[in-house]
């Protein structure tokens, strides 16, 4: 059992103008985003009558963040004040917008009451899935945010909302300065997040009715490439995982690659030995079929471990990227903590416990180090906000949201090739 640290240069992010930064907000403010692929967007703001006065300020501030920091423009701005039930009215608006060509559909900025995202029936999930059924992306803002004096007086609040719109429009705000690999010989790496959630018939039954989930693909710099949504009957889940994994690898890797590193992150209890076996079988078969060399590591992330890591300096915080190698396949990783002169914004930071479930490489300290970097790196690459401190990697962070949204989607959507392609290629879940 010993402690080690990820070197500082691995925590750096690359933003615009070839600049690097430890703090994304400051980085993009000074140097702009890394890559603007879509410089002009359409935005439809949907809100209730009673929130009208705050919405005007909100839109102005978001516009200025998009223009000055993210360097994109709003080509068409549509104001949709609703007087009745927001879910019904938003459905009507979406159906109208669905008549436009795909690249002319607006992104919806939806202002709603705050509700718990733990609630599978929350309006957030219902509205989001209604919009997705029409191939429309959305960014939510709650009225609590608009009524919170501290939050509306901070640029960060509007920058976070603008970031959500920016990435949904296919743009890249930042990526990791250094690539993630498993070993030195690798030519390319894929970091894959898997989230599977069981849907039971009722709370009293132990039997699973079906599974919902996703397999998401990121490149070695942490840039999101695509996601396969999964909706599967119980007896087909392993088959579904195998099929999505194989298609995802085919789609995301470069043609000329011969040696590939695959790091798989998953969290939660619904992936068990059978599913792990299905994953390794797919990778082994892929290796045989293509003649590639694939190095892999399957890592389970435990987010609510009872461990905490303290230091005797900096008020007790340990630096971001510090980890404990327990030398039994377990790693305790400080994804947040102290960074530069700043510490995690609130409270005691919670480290992530990573358990190496399967690998075809020797379990050396360097392999563990590289796996730690995949976890810390993907936590740095979270595009939900501009804050430098994200506890959870992007690979597993959205598991609940994706599952709850998918549980509301009409199952027919998974048979419609256009809708499916949309769900696979857009960052709708962020």
């Amino acid at each position, binding site marked *: *059992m*010993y*402690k*080690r*640290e990820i070197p500082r240069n691995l925590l750096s992010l690359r933003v615009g103008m070839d600049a690097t930064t430890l703090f994304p907000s400051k980085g993009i403010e000074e140097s702009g985003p890394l890559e603007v692929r879509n410089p002009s967007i359409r935005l439809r703001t949907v809100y209730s009558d009673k929130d009208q006065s705050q919405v005007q300020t909100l839109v102005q501030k978001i516009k200025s963040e998009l223009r000055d920091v993210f360097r994109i423009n709003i080509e068409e701005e549509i104001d949709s004040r609703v007087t009745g039930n927001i879910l019904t009215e938003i459905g009507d608006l979406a159906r109208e917008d669905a008549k436009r060509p795909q690249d002319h559909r607006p992104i919806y900025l939806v202002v709603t009451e*705050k*509700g*718990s995202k*733990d*609630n*599978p*029936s*929350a309006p957030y999930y219902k509205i989001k899935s209604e919009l997705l059924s029409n191939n429309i992306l959305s960014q939510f803002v709650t009225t609590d945010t608009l009524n919170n004096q501290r939050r509306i007086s901070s640029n960060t609040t509007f920058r976070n909302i603008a970031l959500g719109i920016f990435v949904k429009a296919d743009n890249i705000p930042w990526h990791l300065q250094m690539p993630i690999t498993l070993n030195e010989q690798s030519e390319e790496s894929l970091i894959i997040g898997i989230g599977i*959630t*069981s*849907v*039971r*018939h*009722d*709370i*009293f039954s132990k039997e699973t*009715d079906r599974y*919902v989930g996703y397999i998401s693909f990121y490149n070695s710099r942490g840039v999101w490439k695509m996601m396969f949504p999964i909706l599967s009957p119980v007896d087909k889940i392993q088959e579904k995982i195998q099929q999505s994994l194989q298609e995802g690898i085919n789609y995301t890797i470069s043609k000329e690659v011969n040696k590939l590193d695959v790091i798989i992150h998953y969290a939660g209890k619904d992936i068990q030995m059978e599913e792990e076996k299905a994953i390794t079988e797919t990778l082994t078969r892929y290796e045989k079929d293509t003649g590639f060399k694939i190095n892999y590591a399957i890592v389970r992330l435990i987010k609510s471990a*009872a*461990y*905490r*890591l*303290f*230091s*005797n*300096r*900096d*008020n*007790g*915080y*340990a630096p971001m990227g*510090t980890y*404990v190698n*327990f*030398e*039994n396949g377990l790693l*305790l990783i400080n994804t947040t903590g*102290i960074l530069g*002169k*700043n*510490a995690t*914004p*609130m*409270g*005691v*930071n919670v480290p992530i416990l990573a358990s190496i479930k399967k690998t075809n490489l020797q379990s050396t*300290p*360097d392999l563990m*180090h590289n796996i730690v970097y995949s976890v810390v790196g993907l936590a740095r690459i979270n595009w939900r906000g501009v804050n430098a401190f994200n506890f959870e990697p992007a690979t597993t962070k959205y598991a609940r949201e994706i*599952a*709850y949204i998918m*549980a509301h989607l009409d199952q027919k959507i998974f048979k419609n090739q256009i809708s499916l392609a949309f769900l696979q290629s857009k960052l709708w879940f962020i």
Partner: protein
Amino acid sequence: MLADVSQSMTFYLNAYEIRPEKQSRPLDAFRIPPDNDVQARRRLASILRENNITFHRLSSDYLGYKAGYYIYDVERWSQIIKSDEILSKIECYKEHIEATSYVVRNAILKLIEDKLGRVNDIRKIKNSIDERKFYFLNDLLKDNSSIFTYHRCFVYRVEYFAIPTKKLLLLILPSLLIKGKKSLEWLIKEKNVPTELLLGLPFKVEQEINQEIRTPAYVGFLEDLTDNTAIVRPADLTLKTVEVPLKNLYAIGRIDLYRKIVEFLGENCDLLYDYKGEFTFTWEKRKKIENAPSRMKEEVENIRKELFSKNVFPLKLQSVTYTLSDDPVSLESREE
């Protein structure tokens, strides 16, 4: 925040070492392999529970130990199985187990639980395979809220590590337990809280028995109300909602979502926030607690002294006496 560079950096876990006394003899255990039929497995589980037997269950072969139930109450077990028609027929092996080993972890976990169970001012609240959760009965809110009580609480685990030397660690994680004090029935019938403030809120649904299946408490979101029942949507993904008597629903610690209710009751929501911030080491007087980890480390130390060193250790398992270290586990630094 400026780092104090005058001292070298040392790292600690929220853990203490559990040490058997030097030259301890190995422990005796019966090992029952896991591959018994359903009837025998059920009987085994029920006898272990009913007789409060000290054991560790290993689901698959690990670190040189074979899968099975490792039973440390050897004499009692010999007596029990003699008179049990089913258990007397199952395979059972006598083993010698090192005092510091993987398969002794949960036996120690349980012995600690038994001793903590005898301490007056704490109660057990959670019992999972590898960890236990206890809380202090004292209400930190001192009756300043009619729907919540706040309690210091902690989770503990026993962990085993083999490298570089074999070690058993006691992990202590302190936190705050927020309990619902009054039911939804009370909120509606006694306090006339309007339905629109309640719909969509999360509640703890107390244990229920439905079609003879006992369901542990779960969190559900209020979707609808009738005179005496609530329709709740479980937080776990399920297809169906559940009908629950109003008296079975209690508020949970999401103070942010309960603000309107607290204000309707004419109580001080900021006070609830302040206490929550302080006891979760997050904020104090509306400001971030800058030394949150140091404060938590102090609380870990307090719980060790107050409870574990005073009431639990030294701990005896057969002829082996275990003691608890005074200092938390510090980590060797290795930079390659």
